[in-house]
């Protein structure tokens, strides 16, 4: 139930009720969401059952589940999903290892801790396009510093089909590990000190303290970071698109873009967008389930 207005308040003087104020704030947002999110979502669902091509003048014909059947039977699409799964595993796994590791290092008394933390956050503040172009130069076989430092004279990181995906994932790890670090650091600094003191009195080993106190208490925040990063990694487009266009780096978002805006298979690409949406929702739900379990503990 809504609280009544203070008769002396400015809103009351202008004759605006609580309900009117609530509506004033909520209705524009709801209208915006319906027009720009819900309506296109439903409209594109309709298109996913048609052979519509936005580049042509022919009307959309209803073809039932044909788009979905073709997509699920397409070896290329499955290959794109496999590539995406590999990318998500390597990229998010790497970010968690590096991000959490750096957070553990920063969660102690070190000089200029604030400055170091701020500097470490810089990569994730940069634009994806800039990072992609920048790393493309670093990886260059002719003048890139990576080959120079590693002594790999002519090695083509982004032109080698076996390595290109991992090279892109490494860039993503560099860029987004700070995000995981930030959330982990928040989780680590929220752990009550008396737990560590009690463990020290009981002569608990460092490993025991880490596995029984640190990890369980930081897990909810770490899982939130993993959920966000998994969803983002699953949708990665710009970084891989800018850095390389090998078949072995064609993530599902890139395939979707090509299908929708280069090949103009509008109906089929709508169907594919739904397949991707369902997969992201399914993966997110699994994480949320684990998150709730972690919180309950």
């Amino acid at each position: 139930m809504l609280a009544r207005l203070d008769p002396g308040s400015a809103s009351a003087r202008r004759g605006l009720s609580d309900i009117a104020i609530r509506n004033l704030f909520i209705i524009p947002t709801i209208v915006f969401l319906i027009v720009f999110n819900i309506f296109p979502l439903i409209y594109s669902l309709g298109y996913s059952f048609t052979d519509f091509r936005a580049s042509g003048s022919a009307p959309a014909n209803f073809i039932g589940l044909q788009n979905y059947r073709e997509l699920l039977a397409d070896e290329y699409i499955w290959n794109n999903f496999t590539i995406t799964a590999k990318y998500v595993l390597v990229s998010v796994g790497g970010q968690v290892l590096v991000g959490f590791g750096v957070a553990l290092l920063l969660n102690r008394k070190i000089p200029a801790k604030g400055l170091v933390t701020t500097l470490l956050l810089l990569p994730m503040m940069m634009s994806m396009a800039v990072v992609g172009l920048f790393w493309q130069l670093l990886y260059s076989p002719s003048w890139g510093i990576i080959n120079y430092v590693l002594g790999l004279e002519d090695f083509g990181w982004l032109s080698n089909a076996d390595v290109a995906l991992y090279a892109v994932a490494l860039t993503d790890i560099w860029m987004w590990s700070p995000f995981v670090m930030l959330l982990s650091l928040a989780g680590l600094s929220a752990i009550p000190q008396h737990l560590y003191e009690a463990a020290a009195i009981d002569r608990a080993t460092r490993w025991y303290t880490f596995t029984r106190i640190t990890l369980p208490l930081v897990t909810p925040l770490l899982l939130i970071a993993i959920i966000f990063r998994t969803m983002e990694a699953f949708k990665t487009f710009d970084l891989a698109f800018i850095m390389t266009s090998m078949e072995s780096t064609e993530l599902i978002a890139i395939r979707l873009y090509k299908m929708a805006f280069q090949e103009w298979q509008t109906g089929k690409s709508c169907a594919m967008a739904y397949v991707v949406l369902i997969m992201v929702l399914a993966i997110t739900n699994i994480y949320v389930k684990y998150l709730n379990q972690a919180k309950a503990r």
Partner: protein
Amino acid sequence: MSKKKWSGLLAGAVFALACSSAPAAEKLTILWAQWDPANYLQELVKDYEKQTGVTVKVETTPWPDFQTKAFREFAAKGDAYDLVVGDSQWLGAGSTGGHYVELTDFFKKHGVDKSMAPATVEGYAEYPKGSKHYWAVPLEGDATGWSYRKDWFDDPKEKAAFKKKYGYDLGVPKTWAHMRDIAEFFHRPSEKRYGIAIYTDNSYDALVMGYENVLFGYGGDLGDYKTYKVKGIIDSKTAVDALKFYKELYKYTPPGWGKVFFLEDNQAITEGLASMSMNFFAFFPALTNPATNKNAKVTGYFANPEGPTGKRFAALGGQGISIIKYSKKQDQAMKFLEWFIKDDVQQKWAELGGYTCSAKVLQSENFRKATPYNQAFYETMFMVKDFWAVPEYAELLDSMNKRLHPFIVGNKGSAEEALAGVANDWDKTFRKAGLLK
């Protein structure tokens, strides 16, 4: 607010309205990709503005976004652009999709099919092929050719060593086999010198165009352009041999050459990396300029060599200019095209650096001697062949890139498997589109 102030504001508003309703100067907007020829066109149309008072603005967008932006505008039936200088492959989608104004009557009335080089009319204007229906006026002729290091080729020591090894004189390659020998000869990674620079980028049409040069020269083809039959043609032994040859050329490229297009292929010459470099003629002006190419004085140019059957072809690039159906200024756009096809305008277009398609200008002595590469361009424009121009061309390109790139660059599978895959994919696409029964 006083009554006086209100009257003042009202008067101002009326004046502003009166001004805005005054007839605005006429303006045409042309959409093209962001590259030097678009700048030359912007320069050329200043004459049109002087003569007619109509402003013409050439709006450009980067190459990777060009197709997407143009078709997004078509899909929205937008009138932001009146004309578009579209890729030759867009003809099918532009015409059957109802985005281009048909120019068949315009062609007949002004004899455009006769005044422009035949290959450019077929490549940039006609759809379907052989139908005598025209949708664009050939504007920027282009095709792939070669730049090479004259100083390396003319070095007496190199000449002697080459003759000793291969038994014939080192010079501009007359056949693809000669080109392979020269690439092998100059490939010296320990000296940071490499044999050849070819296209390998698989994001649009670069790799496919590169392969087409060899495929057509070998006597192969993409398919039957009338029946859309592809099985037995694109996967024929000739096509397989051509693909194996293209992969062999890749062996002699500089390191990290697995995804390169025009920029890198020009760099191969400017940075002194390769002895020969494939590129579209439109990108050669940068190589003649000593400010952008320190090797400008020692850079030469030649057209594609012959294949084993004596056939000589080049992959067609370039674009035609079309009137967009949704433009509200179609009459004015038509008048602009009438002006553009005039002989003196075509002459000026060529002088500015544009690659005219006018047969008369192309054949003139002046044009052929105007730059070090115009002779090669002239030869090439009479032996060009294009990729499919059907509305499904992007799917066909994508499929070919997917099959060829792993074989050429990634060393995966065989040439036979790659082309059999292309034939299957294309067969499915043509059947689905109703083109192949």
